[in-house]
């Protein structure tokens, strides 16, 4: 009872956001709420996605060779529309449920990203012999989910601006999102962390796909104009990858990320928000480093061992602070190819 009471102080009810608070917000500079911004971003994403689909005027076929333990087969799929997920649907339900990533011609590829040409596919899951790429994708996806949680969980008067998250580094013990929560000297209690955890955990049951979209830098700026950090970062990102920015949508939360993400939130089995530490960055000012821990649903762990990990994830994560400069930019493209033990 006491836990729920303290939750109400800072966080809204898990059910829904109320737009009526719009006029009564006490934010310094902006009259916006996260719900409004989210809705707007979603609309832009949707229109851009439809536009890109509309560019495909005729149905061309591509040959896809599937290699893998269940069976090897050849499929004829639609160019620019069919995804590895669709390929797995043709083969076995086992692949549909457990595949987190696909290796398309050796390159890590999202499950819901359309295929462009004749290729060979391998499906990856969390219990492979060498699941390092999938682990990184998982960590990255959990960061996105954490961003979703931060934008959704707080009450409307706190307009949360997400900054960025560092490269996935599993050995640190936690995934991280740096954000401006507009809270003064907040030291989260266990109950508050539990509330945030539950917000994130709900997504597992909603089974939301991680949809990938490559957008032009201008559209990305349009999407993230209300976020002062991201609007600064987008030009840098676009510079390195030829005026294209990769954007992911989970449910109705849109965010920038470079590397591949897992197929759906259904594959995130355990999710915990473990800590929030205050950090002082030279480029962005005072931010909160929110840390979390998660495990895929395919991987089982006893609650006792998980608890040890959770306590470790509460310690301050020493990943590099968010910088605007290129060398330590978190959006570089070598997330996928780097293999660290």
């Amino acid at each position, binding site marked *: 009872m006491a836990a729920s009471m303290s939750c109400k102080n800072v966080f809204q009810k898990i059910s829904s956001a109320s737009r009526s608070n719009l006029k009564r917000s006490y934010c310094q500079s902006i009259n916006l709420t996260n719900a409004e911004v989210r809705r707007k971003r979603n609309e832009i994403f949707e229109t851009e996605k439809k536009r890109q689909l509309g560019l495909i005027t005729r149905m061309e076929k591509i040959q896809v060779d599937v290699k893998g333990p269940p069976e090897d087969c050849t499929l004829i799929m639609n160019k620019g529309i069919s995804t590895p997920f669709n390929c797995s649907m043709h083969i076995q339900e086992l692949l549909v449920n457990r595949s987190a990533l696909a290796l398309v011609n050796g390159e890590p590829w999202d499950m819901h990203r359309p295929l462009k040409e004749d290729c060979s596919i391998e499906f990856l899951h969390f219990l492979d012999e060498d699941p390092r790429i999938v682990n990184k994708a998982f960590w990255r996806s959990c960061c996105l989910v954490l961003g979703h949680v931060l934008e959704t969980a707080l009450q409307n008067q706190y307009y949360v601006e997400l900054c960025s998250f560092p490269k996935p580094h599993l*050995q640190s013990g936690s995934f991280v999102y740096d954000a401006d929560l507009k809270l003064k000297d907040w030291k989260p209690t266990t109950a508050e962390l539990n509330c945030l955890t539950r917000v994130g955990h709900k997504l597992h049951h909603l089974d939301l796909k991680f949809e990938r979209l490559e957008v032009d830098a201008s559209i990305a700026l349009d999407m993230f104009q209300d976020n002062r950090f991201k609007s600064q970062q987008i030009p840098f990102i676009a510079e390195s990858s030829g005026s294209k920015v990769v954007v992911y949508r989970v449910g109705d939360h849109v965010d920038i990320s470079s590397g591949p993400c897992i197929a759906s939130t259904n594959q995130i089995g355990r999710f915990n928000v473990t800590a929030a530490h205050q950090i002082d960055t030279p480029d962005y000012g005072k931010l909160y480093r929110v840390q979390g821990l998660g495990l895929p649903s395919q991987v089982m762990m006893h609650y006792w061992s998980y608890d040890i990990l959770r306590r*470790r994830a509460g310690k301050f994560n020493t990943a590099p602070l968010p910088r605007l400069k290129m060398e330590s930019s978190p959006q570089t493209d070598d997330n996928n190819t780097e293999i660290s033990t």
Partner: protein
Amino acid sequence: MLRFPYRARPRKMSRQRLPEEGIIVGQEGRLQRLRQLVTGLVRYERIETVYQHCDETRGYAERLIHTAIRNGDQHQHTMEMADYWLNEKDLIYKLFDVLVPRYQNYSSAFTNIYRTPIVYPGRGTEMGILELKGNPWPDVLPKQRDNRYVISNVLLQAARKDYNTSKESRKTKNELNSSSENSET
């Protein structure tokens, strides 16, 4: 030292159908069946039968080999045991010449047991595989996987490392403290 926890209570296994003798009821039937299985195990080094029977022969097979290792082939009781349990007498040579040297320095059990899938449709009998370790046939299990890159192991390994380094640093800190106390006094 017998490295296998053999069952204290025997399984009933009554009413066994044996190829030559026919149906034998009761404890006698059980023993004949077990003899047959132990003989088969020593001969073929891998047998597939009812899982419960595999489990039952395991104790006897292990005990037989253990006795042979301990006492050698000049020991009268051991020879009597071998003669009883191995229906085919060329296997007595195999026991002392092949199995005893093989298992001389083993610090684990000499047999492995696995469950095989139940065949459907059928009676639903649970079948198993009993094998002697170190047999020349290919392994029953495909191959042992290296799980160290699975995410749970990665996280736990990192946590373990963290704990050990902190323990060492605490240890050295304590040592320093205690040495400083000693120097003070």
